[in-house]
């Protein structure tokens, strides 16, 4: 049963990714990106990361994607006749060869390592949100604060960038 869900989420997210890159109209690309984000969040559920699933749905699909769609509607883009780069065929063949090589390496390689301090039984018993919260506010507090400062800077930067510039000629004319 888990294999069926994994195959569905994996194939659907890859198909949605291909559509995001290949579709012509930007709004259609945004909707394909929405499908990709939701299926990736399904993969998080299979990995027992339900807090990350909620964050992915709320922040990515709820906030970031709505921001993209707002900007698309604000700009009212025309669809280009040629929407790929002019020499995109030169990129495709090396990318395909490299992808096959990397995939062969990845599928054959034995991943492993020392187990960490959060065994799956404990995470399942207490809940993923509990485990993430305990770890976040003990060992990762400094990174958490840094992300807060980063988001404040991003907000101020976006407002300053997107503000309509005022005409500056008044003071010198007097």
């Amino acid at each position, binding site marked *: 049963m888990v294999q069926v869900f994994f195959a569905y989420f994996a194939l659907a997210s890859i198909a949605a990714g291909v559509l995001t890159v290949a579709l012509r109209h930007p709004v259609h690309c945004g909707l394909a*990106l929405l499908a990709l984000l939701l299926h990736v969040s399904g993969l998080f559920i299979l990995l*027992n*990361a339900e807090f990350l699933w909620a964050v992915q749905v709320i922040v990515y699909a709820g906030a970031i994607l709505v921001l993209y769609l707002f*900007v698309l509607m604000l700009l009212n883009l025309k669809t280009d006749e040629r929407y790929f*780069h002019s020499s995109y065929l030169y990129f495709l063949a090396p990318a395909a060869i*490299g992808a096959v090589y990397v995939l062969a390496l990845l599928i054959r390689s034995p991943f492993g390592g020392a187990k960490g*301090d959060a065994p799956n039984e404990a995470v399942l018993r207490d809940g993923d949100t509990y485990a993430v919260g305990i770890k976040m506010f003990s060992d990762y507090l400094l990174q958490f604060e840094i992300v807060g400062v*980063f988001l404040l800077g991003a907000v101020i930067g976006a407002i300053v960038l997107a503000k309509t510039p005022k005409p500056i000629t008044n003071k010198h004319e007097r």
Partner: protein
Amino acid sequence: MIPLNAYVAVSAVLFIIGLLGVLIRRNFIIVLMSVEIMLNAATINLVAFSHYLESMAGQLVALFIIAIAAGEAAIGLAIIIVVFRGKISTNVDEMNLLKW
């Protein structure tokens, strides 16, 4: 039980799709969307390793990635609005003001 290699393979495929999108699309907004695909591929990798190696660090870094993606989207879209106001185009080939 799904092997870890399956998750890593899905992540690699998504990353390559996003990289191709950055390279071959000409619309700046689609380029930013492809960057989001690449960030999602990295997030899948982190969460998969966090589950299989039984450590919480991967999920925390994935949370930070999502926060940084939000900031990146806000700044990128603000830059798109500024460029579009001046030149009426979101084509990456025509944004060459800073090019030598």
